[in-house]
């Protein structure tokens, strides 16, 4: 079954078959990344533009490496060095980039729906690398790949997603993806940072999304504990009194992790705030797969670029 779509804008509209195709393809790219020569000629002559309106280390580097390992030419544009500072609109930027005939545009933007708007204007495949508090599909896919690799399955697993769910596009994409594949997701965090009603947006018959009373309830017997970053840049509303208090009530430490299953794995999309949402001894501990997530990110993005930018 091919991935019959021009763009990857979110997980919400992907079918289970499409998700599995992407994960299986990413699995073969994991092997390519383990080779001595990590480059294949598959996307020779293709051009990929990374258009980043928000700060990023991991995602941008990951997309750039993914493109380069497939032999595509990758160009990075960040808002601070582009004509955006001269007042060019998003649409004009997109149309100008389209005039240079790229095969794929990877976009991160602070506003939800920005990639969708660009996708309608350009012929290139548009890949959402994070839009506002909406979706971050490649992050959810790499999380799923990491879970699948360590647990052998996703269906039936209990996944705790903890922290600032309100501002988290990672949490939304994961809620869609993991529940579609049959996982049971428990969300927890300060009540000011929980978007109650989110569960009604999730259309899954296999899995489920529920809000736990507290972090302990969410973590108890979990197979996967996914911590979310406290997004300092979006904390304008006084959602909690202090970072110290947040850490005491909602941080992941060894005592709390002990409530999960003995073989539970710990994920975090990065960058981590050590001592805030996650203690250093957990982040660096044996259960933590934070760096493997980064590794799998390259494989997932190679799969997406192969599936979307490979053709005519």
């Amino acid at each position, binding site marked *: 079954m*091919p991935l019959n779509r021009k763009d990857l804008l979110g997980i919400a509209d992907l079918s289970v078959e499409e998700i599995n195709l992407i994960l299986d393809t990413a699995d*073969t790219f994991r*092997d390519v990344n383990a080779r*001595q020569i990590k480059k294949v000629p598959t996307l020779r002559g293709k051009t990929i533009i990374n258009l980043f309106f928000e700060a990023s280390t991991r995602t941008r580097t990951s997309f750039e490496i993914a493109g380069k390992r497939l032999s595509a030419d990758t160009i990075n544009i960040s808002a601070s060095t582009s004509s955006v500072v001269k007042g060019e609109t998003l649409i004009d930027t997109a149309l100008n980039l389209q005039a240079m005939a790229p095969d794929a545009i990877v976009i991160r933007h602070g506003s939800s729906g920005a990639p969708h708007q660009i996708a309608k204007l350009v012929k290139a495949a548009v890949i959402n690398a994070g839009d506002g508090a909406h979706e971050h599909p490649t992050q959810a896919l790499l999380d799923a790949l990491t879970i699948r690799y360590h647990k052998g399955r996703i269906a039936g697993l209990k996944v705790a997603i903890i922290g600032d769910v309100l501002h988290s596009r990672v949490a939304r994409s994961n809620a869609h993806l993991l529940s579609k594949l049959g996982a049971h997701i428990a969300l927890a965090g300060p009540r000011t940072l929980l978007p109650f009603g989110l569960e009604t947006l999730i259309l899954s018959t296999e899995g489920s999304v529920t809000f736990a009373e507290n972090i302990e309830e969410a973590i108890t017997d979990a197979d996967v504990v996914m911590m979310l970053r406290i997004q300092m840049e979006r904390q304008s509303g006084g959602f909690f009194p202090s970072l110290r208090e947040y850490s005491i009530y909602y941080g992941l430490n060894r005592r709390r992790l002990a409530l999960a299953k003995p073989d539970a794995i710990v994920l975090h999309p990065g960058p981590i705030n050590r001592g805030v949402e996650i203690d250093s001894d957990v982040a660096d501990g044996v259960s933590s797969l934070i760096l493997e997530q980064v590794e799998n990110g390259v494989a997932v993005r190679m799969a997406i670029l192969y599936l979307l930018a490979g053709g005519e």
Partner: protein
Amino acid sequence: MEFTEKAVVMTAGDVNRVLARMASQIVENNPDLSGVLLVGIRRRGVPLAERLAAKIKEMDGVAVATGALDITLYRDDLTTVADRPVINKTELPANITGKTIILVDDVLYTGRTIRAAMDELIDFGRPRRVQLCVLVDRGWRELPIQADYVGKNVTTTEAEIIKVMLPEYDEMEQVLLVEQK
């Protein structure tokens, strides 16, 4: 796709005899079998490589190493085919430098698959030499590539298709000459 069957090119017995002959030719041409690696090209080259290895083991008692190559990422027509082909795993031993690699495939046709396979091999190391073994050579080459071991040469028209059926993937074992209806 519907096909008209035009002829049985090889029966299961023929395939077995031809594999035995090619196995003995491989042994004859490669005195040091410890440096030989039989690499099947996915899909049908893989079981053929394994069967060649089994025959060599029967004949000489030497267990020749085998591997599998998926050439999808190296195809030269990826930008023109409509759907992205599914990629399967390439499985090769850690180091192929210095080895004698025998590529194994079911049908040799344009030679483009073999070109892709050689490019992929080179990305894994620098083999001492590369040889090619095919069950059927049907002609119509588009690249200067020839096989070292050929099971059977079959004269075909360009519209005809050689359909190799192996028990690993098909209901029975035989090689057919067919044409699309």
